[in-house]
């Protein structure tokens, strides 16, 4: 007997939406009873994708986070359900019973991920089933995983210690990491943190400050990087809410210093060093 799990590597997600569309293809307008009733043609996002735009001033990145049901083994929806409407299979998949769950709107509010959707017409809460009916029919992966072009979605058997998903699960974290207590079967790699970045110029000679030494000190650590040929530097995956001192140094130029706080991403694209 398998125990399923999914590891989502955010750094590999290109936001192509193939997973989102494959889910619609599988579920919209067609029942897969007893696992799932038909998803409405529009309005539900059983495989949701959250794009998070990070940065500003010419340094912009987008982290795309696919969010299906996490199939929590300590599932808040299971606790909120009446009449045994939410069940956990031995393979770990959490299902909302399409008959017993009728009218149980409270389930949509119970999920901390907003992964349970309300079907107004059917008076029914619904969500990702990990394509349990598809797996039960002998297929190897849920539809979303099957269509992922980069391997950002990885699915497999956690009971097999040699499976890729087992190996990667060891390094993966719940989303957000504070939610480990829910014991989700879906976990993440490369959850983005905060960014401090900038571009350094030498205005006296109208050049980029290639080789400038940039130091970020704070929270008990000191990190140093060297500005590249464009004068760019970057510190990534910093903790939020931390205060740092940022120092930019270049021989022959006055050091440039400022305080930055990672309440938001910090990007300054025009750090001008003064010639000594």
């Amino acid at each position: 007997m398998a125990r399923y799990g999914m590891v989502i590597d955010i750094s590999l997600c290109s936001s192509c939406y193939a997973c989102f569309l494959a889910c619609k293809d599988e579920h919209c307008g067609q029942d897969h009873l007893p696992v799932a009733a038909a998803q409405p043609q529009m309005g539900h996002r059983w495989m949701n994708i959250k794009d998070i735009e990070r940065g500003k001033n010419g340094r912009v990145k987008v982290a795309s986070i696919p969010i299906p049901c996490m199939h929590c083994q300590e599932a808040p929806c299971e606790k909120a359900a009446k009449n045994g409407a939410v069940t956990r299979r031995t393979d770990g998949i959490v299902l909302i019973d399409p008959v017993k769950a009728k009218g149980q709107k409270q389930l949509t509010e119970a999920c901390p991920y907003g992964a349970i959707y309300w079907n107004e017409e059917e008076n029914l809460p619904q969500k990702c089933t990990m394509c349990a009916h598809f797996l039960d029919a002998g297929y190897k992966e849920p539809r979303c995983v099957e269509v992922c072009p980069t391997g950002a979605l990885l699915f497999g058997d956690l009971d097999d210690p040699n499976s890729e998903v087992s190996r990667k699960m060891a390094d993966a974290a719940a989303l957000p990491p504070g939610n480990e207590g829910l014991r989700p079967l879906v976990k993440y790699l490369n959850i983005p943190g905060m960014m401090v970045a900038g571009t350094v110029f030498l205005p006296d000679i109208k050049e980029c400050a290639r080789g400038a030494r940039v130091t970020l000190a704070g929270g008990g650590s000191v990190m140093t990087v060297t500005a590249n040929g464009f004068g760019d530097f970057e510190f990534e995956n910093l903790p939020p809410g931390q205060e740092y001192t940022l120092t930019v140094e270049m021989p022959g130029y006055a050091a440039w210093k400022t305080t930055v706080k990672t309440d938001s991403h910090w990007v300054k694209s025009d750090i001008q060093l003064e010639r000594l």
Partner: protein
Amino acid sequence: MAEQIYTNCTVCGPVHVHVENGRITRIRPLQLDDSDPKDWTIEARGYKFTPPRKVTVGQPTMTERDRVYAEDRIKYPMIREDFNPNGARNPQNRGKSGYRRISWDEALDIVASEIKRVQSVYGKEALSAMTSSHHCWGLVGYKASAFKRFFSFTGYTQVLDNPDSWEGFHWGATHTYGYWWRLGAPEPYDLLEDCLKHTDMIVHWANDPDTIRGGYAGQESAIWRVWMRKLGIKMVYIDPFCNFTAVKDAYKWLAPRPGTEAALAEAIAYVWITEGTYDKDFVARKTHGFEEFKAYILGLTDGKPKDPAYAAELTELPEATIKALAREWASHRTMLACGARGGFGGAMRTAYGHEWARLMVLLAAMQGMGRPGSNFWGAVLGAPCNTEFVFPGYADKAGNIASPAIAKIVPVNPVKQKLYRLLLPKAFTDPPVSWMGEGFCGESLEQQFTPFRYPMAGHSEVKMFYRYGGSFFGTMCETNDYIAMYQSPRLECVVGQDIWWTPEMRFADIVLPACTNLERYDIAEASSSGGYSQHASSGCNRRICVMQKKCIEPLYESKSDYQIFTELADRLGFKDKYTEGLDELGWCRRFFEFSDASKYISWEEFYKKGYFVVPMPENYKPTPAYRWFYEDRVCDTPDPAPKKTNTLHTYTGKIEFVSESLKHFTPDDTERGPMPRYQDSWEGHKSELYKKYPFHMISPHPRYGYHTHYDAHAKWLWEIPEHRVLKDGHPYIVVRINPENAKAKGIQEGDIVKLFNDRGVVLGIARITERVRRNVVHVYTSSGIYKPLEPGKPSPDMGGCVNILTSKRFMSKKVAGFAPNSCLIDIEKWEGQ
């Protein structure tokens, strides 16, 4: 009935289609099995790269089920309610009037009798017909096939396409390095391997590979970008929009002011020349006219050096950054990637876009194009590929049922008169029109200089227009003009044939419902267009030939295009000649037998399995693009050049800084002169219009649709927030604007905004993002939805056809290309009417 699983193919990749009880239940990327040939491996820098053993498809393909059963399918033959072929035709009401259902017999009788009537009264040329592109896949049913065979028998005024996807490369780069047989795009062979082995940096200039995906190649190159990241290849993006690839892996994003890209190119050349960091040996051996170019760049001829300070003022990039770009480029082994196939990209669909395209080839040349790791490559084609295996693509001479390679009876269109797509509105409302260039000039450079006039001497104007597909409002320029075109009394009859109610169908007098390629038989190789993009399936990790099975019966009363044309041919007396006694499956078999697949498996085996994966040759030997040229050998790549030599097919055989072909044909052209250079855009920051309309609108090809296709029909796409956003039940197109501009305009995220200029008004929904440069509005072109507030009149369009706002002015005086990315507009919050 038990589940059936069929093979088929789409514009974005091959699929397995699950069907239960006559209804499609699933569309999956084609599933390979263990008997399919093993995949290639590239060894590079200590790694072995093998593609995952699965087929990927583009986003639109995943919505095929939604699209097939879309609400806006044309269900029955229809007639415009105030169109009477024997009485009042009311052309002025096209686009306004409703429709009533008629029988197939009635509809086909009217169409056939109208064809007979106009051709007997005015001449064969009085009939014209025009397709859209890319709505379906398959060698029998695609536009160049069943359609072409039918109209070649009837005779018709053919409408020449402008080379819209290649525009600047077609009209420009061909005069710099040849490749007119690729419409100006470069050869792509084996550059994936070359990149993985040798490249340190890729400059993506107007290139979003994760969005354009090699055209038809699904998401096959997505994994290549993962590999490149693993190798630490630095990605530089030059684009006013921090595009979908850039937000994932940019080492540097540079956002020049639109229309000034050529000045940036000049300044890069300036740095290389003054610092001596170009490939002097290659330039001396393999190029022509460099000294003249050098003198111009240094300002020796006009006293104005094209230095970084000059470019900084035009582009609004820091002077230091321009220098850094030039130095990073020269000090790394760098690929220059301009658009999907290396010869596309939004910067070439601009005023004087041919100049940018030519400068791109010249920059690649200055860095020794063809040496290991340094090349001219769009980063989405050029996987290891068995190019010896023949399977025709739709644009190949053998890729259609009108071809002598496939058909026994070959029709020849007797009509010499031509029209030009970009001039249709004027031709049908205010003829005559004239232009220079034979549309897609893929046969020779000289074709670009052929003069045309419509009506041709001694010929009738077009009186009947047969429209197949309906994409103009979302794809052409200044597209409110198409309203007047359709309402012109010069057009006595307009026929529309399509699967869905695409915008132009609502301007037709008679509407004929066709079916999708999931509802009929066809055959094709995935991703292969052939023709001008020879070996485009090298954008995929394997070549797959697909038997496109009929999965379900045609829905409602729809029929296949081949069937519709067969029934019309019957009424016009040439059914037997048209069909040669074959149904669609019969034609499929002819293609199979022509192809090399028949050397590997029988028709019966192919039909049963549904696909054939082309094996790689034993001991595959890569022949990287342009290596032969760099090393001064005879071309050893599979490129279909007219002649294999050690030279290019320019007049000098070299890369021409000064074009001898342009000197020969248009020596007095000051806009596309012999030597390329930056010129202020005729619709840019220095034009008079800029005072009134201070925003540049850029409108690249869409990420989540395919041209205009899927967008209007597959509602699942409307729930992708970077594609459309539903507000009050309407799916508005996403309009991206910088926070600084949005604040000044009082625009908030999610506001309905109007984009406008003197050409029209288009509505969209605001997305406020740092990804767009200041004073630029980014919105994807090719809206499939056209929803004017007052149908049949130029009025604000809720659909999002931003092409209403783009100028119909030609790229330059003697170049009949369009320039939709030179477009000035203003933007305001829409307060409703």
